[in-house]
């Protein structure tokens, strides 16, 4: 399948004297993490299917600086931000889509003050737009009637008030969307934010991802849907910790939609 992926870079567009419709910001997890790369590919398949003229920065992309900033290294964050902004402004980028809520939040909210002004969308928002414009159709396929619960990423939900786009997409799969007891604005963190992803948790009596996974399992889901590569890792580990990996899958919304169309 993968040889069919069309992934043009900004440099190629520039060489051809063209502007893409949107820049796909892949992010570090989406580029390097084995699990997240699958999400990246699923999303690209959908973009290809909908004939979206997109481009990636490829080797010109660099970390947004989110984990540095949340660790307290404002200096490193701003260096990263200024460098990325320089690259994107040189390409005259107007619109960005990303499958990572951390990249989404940082570019959307923290880059403007440093000179980077773009329209930024989370991939669930973008997919929803494609759908409403009729460029993409969704069928339930293998997910029809399945029980799916959605884990709100903090940096998509509480941080930016995006609660409905991912849920609308799940409903479009004709799946049964079940909510955890704490969801939307009261959703519990997966434990990865604030750079926790990159360190051992502090001393406590439980890991946050296990707590959150327990909440998810209470809904008796067949699938835990995620919208963030880090949440995905945390919830996957949580499901393994509970020895439920044979019954419950952790999937990104883009993967659900791509799989449902047998892409």
């Amino acid at each position, binding site marked *: 399948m*993968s040889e069919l*992926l069309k*992934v043009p*870079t900004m440099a190629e567009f520039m060489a051809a004297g063209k502007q893409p419709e949107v820049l796909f910001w*892949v992010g*570090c997890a989406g*580029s*390097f*993490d084995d699990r997240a*790369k699958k999400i*990246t590919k699923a999303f690209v398949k959908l973009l290809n299917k909908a004939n979206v003229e997109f481009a*990636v920065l*490829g*080797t010109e*992309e660099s*970390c947004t600086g989110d*984990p*540095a*900033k*949340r*660790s*307290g*290294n*404002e*200096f*490193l964050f*701003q260096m*990263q931000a*200024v460098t990325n902004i320089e690259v994107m402004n040189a390409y005259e980028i107007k619109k960005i889509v990303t499958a990572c809520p951390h990249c989404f*939040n940082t570019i959307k*909210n*923290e880059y403007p*003050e*440093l000179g980077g002004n773009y329209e930024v969308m989370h991939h669930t928002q973008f997919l929803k737009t494609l759908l409403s414009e009729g460029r993409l159709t969704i069928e339930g396929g293998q997910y029809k009637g399945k029980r799916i619960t959605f884990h709100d990423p*903090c940096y998509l939900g*509480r*941080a*930016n*008030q995006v609660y409905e786009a991912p849920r609308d997409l799940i409903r479009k799969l004709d799946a049964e969307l079940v909510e955890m007891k704490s969801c939307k*604005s*009261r959703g*519990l*963190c997966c*434990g*990865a*934010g*604030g*750079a*926790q992803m*990159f*360190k051992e*948790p*502090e*001393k*406590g*009596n*439980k*890991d*946050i991802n296990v*707590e959150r996974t327990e909440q998810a399992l209470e809904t008796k889901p067949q699938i835990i849907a995620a919208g963030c590569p880090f949440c995905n890792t945390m919830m996957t580990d949580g499901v393994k910790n509970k020895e439920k990996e044979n019954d419950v899958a952790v999937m990104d919304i883009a993967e659900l939609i791509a799989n449902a169309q047998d892409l």
Partner: protein
Amino acid sequence: MEYLPQLLFAVALVIGIGYFARNVKKLMRNIKLGRAMDVSDNKSQRWKNMTMIALGQSKMVKRPIAGFLHVVVYVGFVVINIEVLEIIIDGLTGKHRVFSSAGSIYGFLIGTFEILAVLVFVSVVIFWLRRNVIKLKRFLSSEMKGWPKSDGNMILYFEMVLMTLFLVMNATDLKFQAMDSGNIISQYITPWFSNFSEHSIHLIERSAWWFHILGILVFLNYLYFSKHLHILLAFPNTYYGKLTPKGQFENNEAVTKEVKMMMDPNVDPFAAPPEGAEAAVPAKFGASDVQDLSWVNLLNAYTCTECGRCTSECPANQTGKALSPRKIMMDTRDRLEEVGKNIDSNKGSFKDDGKQLLGDYITNEELWACTSCNACVEACPVSIDPLNIIMQMRQYLVMEQSAAPMELNNMMTNIENNGAPWPYNQMDRLNWKNE
């Protein structure tokens, strides 16, 4: 002699209000110890937030039981205080119930106050039960031992006593009872005193009246030392609350300046700084003590109601980590008070006491447990942002002390060298395409 009560009343009033004014001045001075921050934008949105969140209690009712009871006490307290106006006029002029000439309107008002007084009393009793008998988890955390615990109960006792005094005052006011208008509740209390002589009843009425107003003056002055300060500060605090998306953390301006200098090829790093530029560079990055925080952070600290809604939503706290966002706010206030007292006893200037917020109050372990999830900010009924303080203190730990956990240092080195938090080469960023 005839004017003695009026004189005493005036003296009590002047002392009560004077002392309160002194504390307010101190409060403002302490808040101004914080770093300057411009919050003069978006006035209309700010007024709206204040009206909705402080006046309209919109966030309180997210937890229906506590929210409802709180609205009762809040409305009751505000409305019943209209009566205080009459008490003050009576006290100063030596008249009795000056407003009673308003007739049925007066009856209606006092009747409303009486009903509210009972509702407040009942709500306060339920609040007390929640704290002391049902023992709700969020009132039992380690930071709630000692003064915070007694403070919480003290406020409830104050309100119980004040409400009782108000009703007794009405019940033993035989002239008022004779009017038979507005004594909706107190008429049932009057018979309790039927064995007393008219003189004793009058004495009880006078005592209730005096204790009621003195109690209010004492309560007013208790505020400064209590979490109950929120009844005043909730208003400015919700007005100055954050308006940008919760995920948007402010960019440190001092760092922006440095980064711009480094990136600008026209700047000669060895050139002598222009006059006054030295002062523009801050003494330090991030915050290690209260003076480094913004004044809004400090206002936040004084406003905290210690309700613990933040802590009960905090993922770190729920899983047994040392972090409690409520404790972050309480520590900030305690340290600020300590700094304030230090200034008072050193003729107006702060003398280094070898202590600071970081380390002596808040530990690194607490700071490193935060996931920056914003659950605390979302939960706070009075728009407090504990996360903002945590992030400023992390900035100090990392940029001033290089005291990040080792794994985070590795992560940051990776970003610096390869543009990703893991040790992968930037040139391999698009390899996924062909895998």
